[in-house]
């Protein structure tokens, strides 16, 4: 026993995670075979299907919550990689280029590294508060993702008070920042926590007030309904009916996410790392992920409220009609008969050869094998593109997801470019900007919108 215990204690944290996983992986096939042979597994599956069928709503909620929770981590990885690469290009650097092609794995490996680091609690901290703070911050970030509609029929929860829920939960994050700042027993952390509280509470007000105009236009607080109200072309988006609110919302969202130029909460040149100064390992990782999840969520909310959510900016059918192109995305492989066999057998090799040929002919220093590999990669790209186009035209939720992600990641890129180019504002300028400019402008926007609605509606009555 002591031998096992000693070996166990010598493992790194990553090993302590990976070793049980390996054991489970080895035991799983054995268990499956035994379970199937004894008839236990079929019985269990039948029972599960019965129970799940009886509680479809709860199952859907739990499934959505799990999927969205798991969705946040890769999203954060993608945004972190995007930021590293984009800021590198702004800085005239190459950025990460060693981990995977173009360094695409760098942020993932950073995440794993953070996971394997020592979980360190410094002397003098308030241990329970110190431990809970990252959890609160991360929860505040990911719980809001439940109400965001990704595509038609693809959302966690359709609430009538979706927006209210969003702002209520988003406000929870600031409690976590305060907890981190106060419990760390460090003056930089304290200053960072207080800055976070002051800034985020100030910017919640313009953020919420800017949305009031949209709520008045849409007549609902359900994010799904708000997206449906913006259906049609790009001109129906609320960004064009509420331009002032759009600008105010985006600026306030920047401050809410704690991004440059409003990143005073973790201003590294002033207060080291703000509230995160004393954190290390995965506890710091939670703060770090929460920031990027926040960026994604606020971009998604901006896209949902002002840029039409998952609505396409133009109707594809109208464009195709105008170009007099008819595309029938329905596929019936059986109609090809024997042709199908020839297509499957001869199509891929011929296309690969066709795509490899120009490289082989034009690049005299490339070997034939190298040209073939490039041709094969190009063939895959072409096939993926064709499948993508087919899926886009056949399933509305694929088209919706595509446009939603395009809009959201465009806004994320805007956040990143702002970080690469702008210096940071000062705390008094930050507060003055919120209270002297954004809040009055948001109030003006509300009154103008209300007056416009009154005039237009009375005209139609």
């Amino acid at each position, binding site marked *: 026993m002591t031998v096992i215990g000693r070996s166990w204690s010598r493992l790194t944290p990553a090993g302590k995670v990976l070793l049980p996983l390996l054991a489970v992986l080895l035991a799983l096939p054995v268990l499956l075979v035994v379970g199937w042979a004894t008839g236990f597994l079929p019985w269990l599956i039948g029972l599960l299907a019965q129970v799940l069928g009886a509680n479809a709503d709860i199952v859907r909620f739990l499934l959505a919550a799990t999927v969205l929770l798991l969705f946040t981590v890769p999203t954060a990885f993608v945004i972190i990689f995007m930021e590293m690469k984009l800021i590198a290009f702004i800085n*005239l650097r190459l950025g990460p280029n060693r981990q995977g092609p173009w360094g695409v794995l760098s942020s993932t490996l950073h995440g794993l590294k953070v996971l394997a680091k020592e979980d360190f609690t410094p002397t003098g901290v308030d241990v329970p508060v110190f431990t809970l703070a990252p959890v609160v911050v991360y929860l505040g970030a990911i719980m809001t993702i439940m109400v965001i509609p990704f595509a038609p029929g693809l959302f966690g929860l359709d609430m009538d008070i979706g927006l209210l829920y969003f702002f209520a939960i988003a406000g929870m994050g600031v409690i976590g920042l305060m907890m981190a700042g106060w419990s760390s027993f460090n003056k930089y952390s304290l200053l960072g926590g207080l800055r976070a509280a002051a800034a985020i509470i100030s910017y919640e007000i313009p953020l919420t007030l800017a949305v009031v105009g949209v709520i008045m236009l849409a007549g609902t607080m359900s994010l799904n309904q708000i997206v449906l109200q913006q259906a049609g072309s790009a001109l129906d988006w609320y960004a064009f009916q509420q331009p002032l609110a759009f600008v105010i919302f985006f600026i306030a969202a920047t401050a809410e996410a704690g991004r*440059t130029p409003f990143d005073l909460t973790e*201003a590294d*040149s002033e207060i080291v790392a703000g509230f995160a100064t004393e954190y290390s390992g995965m506890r710091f990782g939670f703060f770090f992920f929460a920031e990027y999840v926040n960026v994604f969520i606020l971009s998604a909310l901006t896209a949902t409220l002002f840029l039409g959510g998952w609505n396409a900016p133009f109707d594809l059918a109208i464009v195709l009609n105008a170009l007099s192109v008819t595309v029938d995305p329905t596929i019936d492989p059986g109609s090809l008969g024997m042709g199908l066999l020839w297509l499957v057998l001869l199509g891929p090799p011929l296309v690969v050869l066709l795509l490899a040929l120009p490289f082989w002919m034009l690049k005299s220093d490339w070997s034939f094998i190298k040209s073939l590999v490039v041709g094969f990669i190009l063939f895959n790209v072409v096939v993926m593109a064709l499948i993508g186009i087919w899926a886009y035209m056949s399933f509305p939720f694929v088209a919706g997801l595509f446009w939603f992600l395009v809009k959201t990641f465009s806004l994320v890129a805007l956040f990143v470019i702002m970080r690469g180019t*702008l*210096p*940071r*504002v000062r705390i008094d300028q930050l507060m003055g900007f919120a209270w002297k400019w954004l809040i009055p402008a948001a109030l003006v926007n509300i009154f103008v919108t209300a007056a416009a609605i009154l005039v237009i509606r009375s005209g139609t009555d």
Partner: protein
Amino acid sequence: MSAEPTTIRSLDDPTIMVETPATIYDAIPPYPARTEREAEFYALRDGEMLINLGPQHPSTHGVLRVVLRIDGERVVDLDPVLGYLHRGVEKICENGDWHHAISNCDPLEYIASMFSEAMPVLAAEKLLDLEVPRRADYIRVLCWELNRIASHALFVGWLALDLGGLTPILYGFAERDEIVEMLAALTGQRLLFNYLRIGGVNGDLNHDFMSRLGEWMSRALVRIEEQQKLLNQNEIFIRRTKGLGVVSADIARRTLLSGPVLRATGVPFDVRRAHPYSVYPELEFDIPVRSEGDSYARYLLHYDEIKQSIGIIDQVLAKMPDGPIMAKIPRLLRIPPGRAYVAIESPRGQYSCYGVSDGSDQPFRLRIHDPSFFNLQAVGMMMPGNLVADTMAIMASLDPIMGGVDK
């Protein structure tokens, strides 16, 4: 924070808790106050606290430590603590001969060491009453101006970085790296060149250096203009730096400020014009001056000076004479007894030296006046009343190099 005792884990035995006064976390020195000023500084009023900027802090320049007494975010008072980089360079110089002093003085101004290594060289030449070959003088001016541009390019990046801008520092380093590689082709070193010699320079211009210089010069002005666009009209940057760290011309003169800090207050003092040395009288250039005296004026002034330096390099290359690069001096150099004062214009201001020789081959005394040290004393006038975030902008705009401050 109050001085109530707190229990912390013992450093000797982590299993037991010991009582410690909370003041150890307050940067209060563990000894009784030595001066009246110290007693006044560490007597905190209600609601005030002490916060350490440095010596380990992401944005301190070198290892400067500033203890700030803050009320909320506003700086009430500050206490700079120097000496973390003290090496006793002046004493070390006395123990070697005059040639050793060149490489010993190199790390004083480690961002622009072409200037600090010139100190013993110029002092010895003045004591010897030595005529330096004209080609060597032109090469020196070329190196000085290149090094000035490298240093100024970094200044802009540091100022922006301390204000939260991530990009200008890399543009600055891109310029600096090209210049430093260029000088490495000439001198063999990237940072501490050890290139100037008593009576000339160590090596003649070579093809590698000249081709790098030509390539860089062909697009230097365009790139500098391009980089200016990022911050010059940036509203956030202007609001952060305009009216910040203002010092009047009168006070600047009286507290011995020099360099861009002094010229930003409207005083057109530049050693290259005021007390000409080397071949500067033969070159045409302006002394850029601004009158505001704030951080923004200092920022703009650095770009103006970069442009002037590029103009000087153009003239130097056009006028570069042929001839020897070293005067004839004996291998065992005995400097005649006497005292000599020399001054040059470094990127940070007047870099001067008072050399005393007793007739041996070693300097009897080499007193070095570093502009960073005198510029740094302006923080006491500039910082109180500002916010914590501004202390960084002020510090960066004074651009101290701790190697020279602590010596």
